[in-house]
């Protein structure tokens, strides 16, 4: 299966390598580096590269390339999924996944990789199991380790693999037993010039943070499970009970995990929380243009819209801009032509507006392409689909846990198409 793994930074330096079978020379990465050179953006590097003797499957994530070397047929997604798990594992252990973090914890990352695969086949990928074998660093522990000379490797040998529930370790103890669930929904939408919805759908995810002692068996039920059109689960969820009773019944992993992701049927009308009035126009002759954008609340179910941010990729021929915002502040990077307007909270009484002039490079023709606005927003305490958690029951343990549910709605890929009108200066 997976022969080797190389971690490569954007400048092409291979700063970590791990081999699970015979060593593969790093020169194999040359094919990859070549493809990387060719691609304009790191995202454009093809994930699967075919070389004479090997196959290279890579992912680009957190400004790092995870490159795996394969010698025989294997489902490519198997490898891709695993590479993402590696990245998630690093994130989980060290708080972030970056070159410096990996370099700082080189030995530990190497040991983790050793445990994750055996002969190229995944052995332990559940973070609970891994954490039992190799403890993540904490400030306290690193102090203790320095003083006493002990280390991060678990003193007791792992037991997780041997329990019937691979994702949960035995003997978890908390003084405060808590279970929190965050229902996070993202609206993916494309609105056209007139504000009508071209495409909208809701993608949701239930993130859980469960800190409960022992072996709790939880049942989470929704008021309106019929809303959910398509779901995917953490392996702990019992499929059959979902099929028959539409409840999520599971023995949770310890700590943070994604319980389920779901999709709300696009046929149901999706409430669009904001509207955007905009016009970007250029004078037919001369090299000037105007930009005028107003954002206002639409269907917000009485909640405040926060964290509103408008991002525009302006046409390449723009020379400079001169705008004023009635609320919030804007930044503009002339190199990337990226205009970011950070509005913050939406006030329905006084709608934020950004307007001003754009000037084009001398002699450049009027841009024909319509820049689209990307909107970012956040609404606390609201799941825009209307999904509601009904109750959470715990079985199997005696204590009373503290339970909490939080709803958040965010903008996912939320785009507003614009019109570039041309105006005749003299009329």
């Amino acid at each position: 299966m997976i022969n080797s793994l190389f971690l490569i930074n954007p400048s092409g330096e291979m700063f970590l390598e791990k081999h699970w079978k015979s060593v593969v020379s790093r020169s194999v990465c040359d094919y990859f580096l070549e493809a990387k050179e060719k691609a304009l953006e790191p995202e454009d590097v093809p994930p699967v590269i075919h070389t004479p003797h090997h196959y290279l499957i890579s992912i680009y994530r957190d400004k790092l390339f995870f490159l795996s070397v394969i010698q025989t047929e294997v489902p490519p997604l198997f490898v891709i999924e695993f590479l993402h798990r590696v990245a998630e594992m690093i994130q989980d252990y060290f708080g972030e996944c970056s070159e410096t973090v990996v370099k700082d914890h080189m030995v530990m990352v190497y040991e983790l990789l050793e445990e994750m695969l055996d002969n190229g086949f995944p052995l332990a990928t559940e973070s609970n199991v891994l954490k039992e074998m190799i403890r993540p660093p904490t400030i306290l522990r690193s102090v203790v380790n320095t003083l006493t000379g002990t280390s991060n490797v678990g003193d007791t040998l792992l037991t997780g693999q041997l329990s019937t529930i691979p994702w949960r370790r035995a003997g978890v103890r908390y003084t405060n037993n808590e279970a929190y669930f965050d229902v996070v929904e993202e609206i993916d939408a494309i609105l056209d010039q007139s504000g009508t919805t071209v495409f909208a759908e809701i993608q949701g995810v239930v993130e859980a943070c469960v800190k409960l002692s022992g072996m709790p068996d939880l049942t989470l039920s929704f008021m309106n499970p019929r809303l959910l059109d398509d779901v995917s689960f953490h392996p702990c969820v019992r499929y059959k009970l979902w099929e028959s009773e539409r409840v999520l019944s599971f023995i949770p992993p310890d700590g943070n995990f994604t319980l389920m992701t779901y999709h709300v049927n696009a046929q149901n009308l999706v409430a669009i929380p904001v509207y955007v009035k905009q016009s970007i126009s250029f004078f037919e002759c001369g090299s000037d243009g105007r930009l005028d954008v107003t954002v206002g609340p639409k269907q917000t179910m009485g909640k405040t819209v926060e964290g509103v941010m408008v991002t525009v990729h302006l046409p390449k021929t723009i020379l400079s801009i001169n705008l004023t915002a009635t609320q919030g502040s804007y930044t503009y990077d002339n190199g990337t032509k990226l205009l970011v307007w950070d509005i913050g909270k939406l006030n329905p009484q006084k709608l934020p507006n950004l307007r001003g002039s754009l000037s084009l490079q001398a002699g450049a023709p009027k841009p024909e392409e319509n820049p689209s606005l990307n909107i970012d927003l956040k609404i606390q305490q609201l799941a825009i689909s209307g999904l509601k958690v009904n109750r959470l029951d715990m079985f199997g343990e005696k204590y009373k846990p503290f339970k909490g549910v939080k709803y958040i709605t965010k903008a996912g890929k939320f785009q507003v198409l614009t019109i570039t009108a041309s105006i005749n200066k003299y009329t």
Partner: protein
Amino acid sequence: NRAPGPAWLGYSSPGSSLSLSLSNRTSLIDSTCSDLFLLSTRNDDLKEMLESNKDSLKLDAMKRIIALIATGKNASELFPAVVKNVASKNIELKKLVYVYLVRYAEEQQDLALLSISTFQRALKDPNQLIRASALRVLSSIRVPIIVPIMMLAIKEAASDMSPYVRKTSAHAIQKLYSLDPDQKEHLIEVIDKLLKDKSTLVAGSVVMAFEEVCPDRIDLIHKNYRKLCNLLVDVEEWGQVVIITMLTRYARTQFTSPWKEDGLFDENSETAFYESDEKKTKNGDEKKSYMMDPDHRLLLRNTKPLLQSRNTAVVVSVAQLYWHLAPKHEVGVITKSLVRLLRSHREVQYVVLQNIATMSIQRKGMFEPYMKSFYVRSTDATHIKSLKLEILTSLANEANISTILREFQTYVKSQDKQFAAGTIQAIGRCATNISEVTDTCLQGLVLLLSNRDETVVAESVVVIKKLLQTQPTQHSDIIKHMAKLFDNIAVPMARASILWLMGEYCERVPQIAPDVLRKMAKSFTSEEDIVKLQTVNLAAKLYLTNSKQTKLLTQYILNLGKYDQNYDIRDRTRFIRQLIVPNEKSGALGKYARRILLAPKPAPVLESTYKDRDRYQLGTLSHTINTKASGYLELSDWPAVAPDQSVRNVEVIEPVMIHLYFYYPCPLITQMKLCVLESSSEAESDEEKSSSQSSEESDKSSSQSEKSSSESDSEQKKTTKKPPQKKTVKPTAKDRYYNELFNTYGYTVLSQSKCLSRSLFSLCILTPCPLSCAAALLQVSGPAFVPEKRHDLLHRMTGKGLSAQYQFPRQPCLYQPTMVSVQISLTNTTDHPLEQIHIGDRGPTGLDMHCFNTVECLLPEASVTVSLGVDFNDSTQAANFQLCTKEDQFSVSIQPAVGELFLPATMTEQDFRKEQGKLLGMNESSATITMAAENTTRQPISRQVATVANLGVVPSGQDNIHRFAGKTASSGAVVLVTVELRESSAALITINTEKSVMGPMLLRDLKRALTRA
């Protein structure tokens, strides 16, 4: 940077190394060094640290060494120093040494042998984890000389008690095989052994080993096929992928094609993919009806839930399984899940889109409803964009083409010009595929000719050229338009295309073509090669059609071409000159010049690059790269005749029973009991009456279940109705019976219960022991206790004088075995008769309910008892319905206590233990309680338990343990309760049931009942 830093100097001197502070050392680890000199100095120092007798120093040294390895530096010369520490007591040090050994053993074979004895000792360790890790390292050391030792270790580990060790041995098989392929035969023996393993931990790993060592030994799978199917949901994600891929291949060799019948519904039945099937249908006309092998169905059914997995690899592997194995009308279930994956990481999208691209060519209908999911976003990566374009083009049809074209229009304006060019090609493909829009597309493309961007214009020209070629009749004005644009177009390919068009259709534009040629003559020398070639072509064609105007021009161009720097152009010029200009040397060929140059040319076919990707199994690496990857295993064609099905039959009966509990929610279990009753009645005539009753009942329930069989396929019904030989030959009847028992839902068996009961009877005699105990185990007994407690259904105040109370008589429901029977007593407290009391609207919950007959008239002060059957579906959700009289309607609800949803079962203590053994882990809930003083002997405990729940008492050999058994009414899941008395009135209540919601609820009720004073 060549000079060693001060820290270095201090460090490399042996005396001071011990006194160095810790922080110094760690900072050293971070410093990277590429200098050879530095490296060797460091290594000396490391050696010393490894040889010291302080673990902490050794550990530091090892950490630095591992860091070296991780960064790809060579640390092999430290091997002798490191290997000495292999037997260290310090776990962390040991681990690091293992890591080092695995990396360098291959290079230092002789020295590596020193460590082997340590591992051999560890293989006998009482701790399973130490055994496993020893085997892991031992097998990772790629030293050929230890092959026999490895072989022995693997064989031993394969029969280890611990499933974890067995899993490790499955991994070791592959390692040994790659080290020494000659061991294949022995390894296959081990694989065979491990395939039989029932642990979910082992399953994935051993199938992986099977795939690497002996993928052709399909015969090893037969006996384990059903087990693998059933374990699948509980295997870890990675194992699921491997098992599903293997089972796909297996199924294609063992089952016949399910595609024959519904081949008619195929959208593109002309594709090569289906050709073979059609042939088969023709050949085997007499074999009209297709029956799906129950094992085939089992696989499809058990993989389906995995479409909900969070692991994208699992989802796609299930999707490809359905694509390659499921009947055409069932493949649709995978669509939604695949579309879901498009929200995942970019790389996942890439692979999924490729698979969708292949699928969408064959089955547009599958993805058409999700067309919008394939709309390109400006943030998508280039390869994602082009794949989405590809899919949108494949999905285009008459109905949606206008939407797609509108979408394409915005893409053409994209800043990414390569993508815009790709879009234009896609428009071209749509235009050729859908003749209705050809003209619209062509006009749109012509508009693009005035685009400011060169790539866009060029691509449009090329595409227009191809389109015109398919429809050469009209469009002379488009050609004229292009001729006008000619001066402004600089891209060679586009210029060449226009020239070609001019030449090809020169007779349609007689005025313009010679003029274009004149312009070309002027600029000939500065053109690109491809344009020059087309100029020569144009000249030749014009010379043939219009020699009067163009003779001189042609000759001029041919002369220019003759002295061109490029030999292709010189060649072409020479050839053309011989062909068209008549002279004495030109032979017979000159006569055919017209026919050669102006022959009608076939239109180019614009088709998808994914057209023939389906020769590879979907989801594979080979499919992604469109070449056969090494180690790719071909998916075979369906066999014309299915190989013997009985090879998959398993002798042992236990798994069958497990199966029943898991997959037969329906009345099968009671049914079996009835069958047994019937069979026994044949032996004892005095039970005849009950037998006839039961067979009546079975008929009723079978018809019921047939109605409810939403999942049933027509094929399946045919299976069940078909062969009469079932009865005649007993062994086959047995085989088939098990087959069906195993693989189909209850209804299949039920619908032929009569003929079956007889074969079952014979079966009982043939194999008296296992089945009779199985049947006994399932026997539903009468209730141990019927509580008198009545619950209010409708109070007389709210019911305007009608009062109703309900109670649970705990009798098996007559109407349908899955129902719980409820008795309702209705009383009229008014002074006038109530008429037409009946059950009205049952609300939206949709609980299945058998109503009582309408009570026509209830006199004042009179009361009547009616009975009702409610299928609570094994949940304590209340049954809401309306109780109606002639005038009024009252909403009422029946709220069952969890204990009422069971039916008592009788079983022996042994059976009880066996069942309990199968329901551990997640299926077990327990609690310790303090018993009330009076509840310490058998009788009160039994009574208390029976009051709470409708369970049967299991005879117990021990005084302090009390057991109760039952099954849930609706799905027939086993419920086992154990009350174990401990010291000083403490007691442990344990409940085992797969119904994970009901278990804890029952536990709560029992706790309350038994602690109550």
